[in-house]
Structure formats: structure tokens, C-alpha cells
């Protein structure tokens, strides 16, 4: 027995206009200050006003949102009493909006107490997720990642009740994204698609979604990075991110995310850049153990016809590296400008946090502690994984 959770998805050009058709009284928009400045918050407010709603904006969400921020947002919600909460932005505002929704309705809970095994019993508000990047997939999942700033550590949790009611996937919102952010977030989507396809929790409902999302990113990401106004590429990337979210959100992820979460938290690197760094190494490691089903992805994306699973997997790893290089992704830890001494000092924690990550245990091949440390060492130098 397992579940498939999904929001109602509105996608494509003019999707944002769907907001005008909603009914409700008060909408709290959870977002960041940049989107207010860019006028995107105003566009969302305008549509909600046309639907007859009052709006309030909480735009204090920082990248890698903290527990403290979500608590402040929950206080704003308690004051405003919204019947809709709108998570607008990249993964950070969307994740924060989920936590704010939960704490608004369940003030008795700490964010760290949210988990899939308790019933939240949400009934006062519903959630709209509107991504402005094409990557995180948070608009389609019940997961959220928050940072405990005191412990310098991320924690991932979730609840099936926190799947957004509605996801608005409007490619025009990603049009102005700078190439660097387009690349980081797009590679996150690629990592979701590939890891979601090979995880031990994969299932019949998620396989097709992950394959399609991987194919779309492999086809369109480079175009979207090179020319941000290529709206065909933007639209396919926006769709790919949500499709990958539907896939991995119902199947979990693997080593790339476990290692990336750990590395990103300890060295303050953006999520997508951190997980994509590890992706090709984890493909090699998993393939070396004769595991992974990567060949299916390579064939579906048209990279090869080979029925030799190992060969096809290697072809996928090569293509991922080529794409990452083409969009300016650092290929090893040293490329991030981290010196060896700082890396060495952090290595025990890198390993410990990765092993304790909620994505670690669903990887198809799981390293032991020594192997994991060795993998980090190899990734530091950019050596191919030969074990």
C-alpha cells in the first residue's frame, strides 16, 4: 500500500489568470522581497482582488527559510485569518507556506513536529503554490525543508495534508530568471527526475512522470539558460519541474539529495547546485554496484538504443556531466572555491548529515560510512567513482 498525492495543476500560458476564478475571502501571500520588487506579487494580488479577495503579503521568506521565519509568518496568518494561503516563489517561499499553513491551523505544533504520521486536521485554509522558478517541484509535493539556523542544519519533513490544493505553473513567471538560477533550479529538477526514477520507493504511478521530466530537462534546460526569453524552453522546463515533483514527491529521492543537503547546509550553497554536483557521481557509484535502472532514462531521452544496462547508464552520466558543464555548474567541490583544509575539517559532519538525511535510505545502493567519506573525497577532487 502506498499513496499518490497531487494538487490540481493549472499550467501553461495565462495559468495565473485562473486565480480570478477562485472563491474566497482572504488570501495570505507568502513570498520574498525580490518578488515584491519585481512586481510579481502585485500581479498575483491583482488576480486575487478580481476574485473578490482581500490580500495580505508576508514577504520575509529568506533563501533556505528558517524555523523562526515560518513562526513569524504563522503569527501574521493568525492575525489575518486567511482562507487561502499562497506560496509564491521558489522552493523557499513554497516550503515556508506549507509550514505556515500547518502552524496557522495547529498553533500547538512546532514546525519540527510536523510529520507524515500525524493527522494535522487542516480545515480553515487551502494552499495555492505558484512557482517562479522551474526546479524545486515543491508546488506538487507534501515535503518541506526548513533550516534550523542555530544548528546550521536542515531538516526535511512533510505531511500528505500539506500538498498544495492548487498549483499554478505559469511559464511567464520564470521569464526573467537569471541564467545562473535557471541552471541551478533546472538541475534540481533533473536530479529529482533521475533519483525519483531509481529510488527503492519508485512505483508504477511515478515512473512515467520521472522519465518524462528527465527527458524534458535534458532537452530544454540548456536553451532556457542560454536564452531566458525562449518561451518554448521555459514552458517545458516549468512543466518538467512540476512533473518531476509529482514523481519524486510520491517516491522519495536518493544519495544526490542526501549528500547535497549535507553539503549545501554546511557550505551554504544553493540547493540545486549542491544536489546536481553529486548526481553524476551517484549514478556512477550506483551503476558500479549493478543497480539503478538508469538505462531506461538514457533510452527514453533518446541518448542511446543500447540494451546493455551498464553502457546506457554510463551514457546518461556522461550526458548529465555535459549538460552541467554547458550550464556552468561546478563539477567538483574544489570548483566551489572550498580549500582542502576546510573540506577535511567538515568531512565527518558531511558524512554524518548525509547518513541522517531522509533521502539517504531510499537510494538503490547505499554506501557505508567509509565509502561515503571516500565518495565526498572523490567529489572534492572530481575523480570518477571507481568503487
Amino acid at each position, binding site marked *: *500500500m*502506498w*499513496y499518490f498525492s497531487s494538487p490540481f495543476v493549472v499550467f501553461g500560458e495565462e495559468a495565473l489568470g485562473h486565480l480570478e476564478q477562485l472563491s474566497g475571502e482572504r488570501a495570505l501571500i507568502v513570498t520574498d522581497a525580490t518578488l515584491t520588487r519585481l512586481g510579481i506579487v502585485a500581479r498575483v494580488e491583482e488576480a486575487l482582488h478580481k476574485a473578490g479577495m482581500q490580500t495580505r503579503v508576508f514577504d520575509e521568506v529568506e533563501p533556505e527559510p528558517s524555523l523562526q521565519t515560518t513562526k513569524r509568518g504563522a503569527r501574521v496568518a493568525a492575525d489575518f485569518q486567511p482562507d487561502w494561503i499562497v506560496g509564491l516563489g521558489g522552493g523557499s517561499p513554497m516550503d515556508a507556506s506549507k509550514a505556515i499553513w500547518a502552524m496557522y491551523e495547529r498553533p500547538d505544533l512546532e514546525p*519540527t513536529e510536523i*510529520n*507524515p*504520521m500525524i493527522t494535522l486536521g487542516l480545515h480553515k485554509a487551502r494552499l495555492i503554490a505558484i512557482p517562479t522558478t522551474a526546479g524545486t517541484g515543491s508546488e506538487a509535493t507534501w515535503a518541506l525543508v526548513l533550516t534550523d539556523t542555530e544548528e546550521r542544519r536542515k*531538516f526535511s*519533513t512533510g505531511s500528505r495534508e500539506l500538498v498544495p490544493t492548487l498549483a499554478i505553473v505559469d511559464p511567464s513567471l520564470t521569464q526573467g530568471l537569471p541564467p545562473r538560477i535557471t541552471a541551478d533550479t533546472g538541475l534540481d529538477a533533473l536530479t529529482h527526475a533521475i533519483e525519483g526514477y531509481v529510488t*527503492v*520507493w519508485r512505483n508504477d504511478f511515478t515512473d512515467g512522470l520521472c522519465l518524462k521530466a528527465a527527458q524534458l530537462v535534458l532537452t530544454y534546460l540548456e536553451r532556457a539558460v542560454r536564452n531566458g526569453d525562449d518561451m518554448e524552453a521555459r514552458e517545458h522546463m516549468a512543466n518538467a519541474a512540476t512533473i518531476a515533483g509529482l514523481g519524486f514527491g510520491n517516491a522519495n529521492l536518493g544519495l544526490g539529495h542526501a549528500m547535497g543537503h549535507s553539503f549545501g547546509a554546511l557550505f551554504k550553497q544553493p540547493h540545486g547546485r549542491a544536489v546536481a554536483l553529486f548526481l553524476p557521481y551517484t549514478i556512477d557509484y550506483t551503476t558500479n554496484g549493478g543497480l539503478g535502472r538508469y538505462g531506461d532514462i538514457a533510452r527514453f531521452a533518446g541518448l542511446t538504443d543500447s540494451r546493455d544496462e551498464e553502457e546506457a547508464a554510463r551514457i546518461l552520466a556522461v550526458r548529465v556531466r555535459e549538460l552541467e558543464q554547458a550550464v556552468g555548474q561546478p563539477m567538483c567541490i574544489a570548483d566551489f572555491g572550498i580549500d582542502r583544509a576546510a573540506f577535511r575539517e567538515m568531512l565527518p559532519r558531511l558524512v554524518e548529515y548525509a*547518513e*541522517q538525511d*531522509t533521502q*539517504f*535510505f531510499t537510494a538503490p545502493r*547505499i554506501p*557505508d*560510512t567509509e565509502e561515503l567519506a571516500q565518495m565526498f573525497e572523490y567529489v572534492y577532487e572530481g575523480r570518477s567513482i571507481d568503487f
Partner: protein
Amino acid sequence: MSYKFPSPEWVKAFEEQINSSDAYANAAKTWEGDITLIIDGGPGIYLDLWHGKCRAAEYLTDPHSKNPEFKITGDLEKWKKVLAGKLDPVQGMVTRQLKLDGNLVKIMKNVKAAQELVRCATRVPTTFE
């Protein structure tokens, strides 16, 4: 030789598996906490787990006779699936086929230890009747 699940002999064999597993010892080296695995309407299996070792294992006719930090409850059919490797215990808990009493966050931070523990259980030659 195989052991009937659940029985005191099975619990003893499970304890031996745990204490001879390097993988468990390594994965659970910082774990401190006791746990009772409860078969719905039946007995319990109490484990006192400490720094990669099982300090005590007990078959409990009354599964609630101890007050451990964690309790996981499920019916016999679910436990059979766990032992056969057909039910991932975390998925079992998420879908509420297995019920957890205790701090989930602590378990999630030690999922590797939990997996090795399950692996030890699957290595006990087991019969059901």
C-alpha cells in the same frame, strides 16, 4: 534450525544477530533508546539498544509491561511482511500500517540504524504458524 515468530527463542536469536552485526554496530553507534515491537493483540519484543549493541532483549507476554522510548505496533501480517522484506518499515509507518509511539524525528535521523536492525531481523531463520 528456525525459530517461531514471535517467541522467546526468536527474540534471543534476533539479539544474537544484532550483536554480531558490524553494519548495525556502525550505523547505530550513537543510538541510545529502548523500543518495544508490539504484535497487535499479542506479545511484544523489547529491545534495549545502546551505542550499536543490544544490551537486553526480552519477549513480553504483556507488551505494555515496559515503558520504552519507542513503541511500534502492527498486526502479525504486517510484521510478517517486514520480516520478508516486503514492507519497508518507514513506508509502513507513513501509511499507518505500523503505528509509532515516540519521537519520529529521532528515528528519521537514524534510519540507517533502523534499516540495519530490520536486516538483522530478516536474517533470523523464521517460521510462522
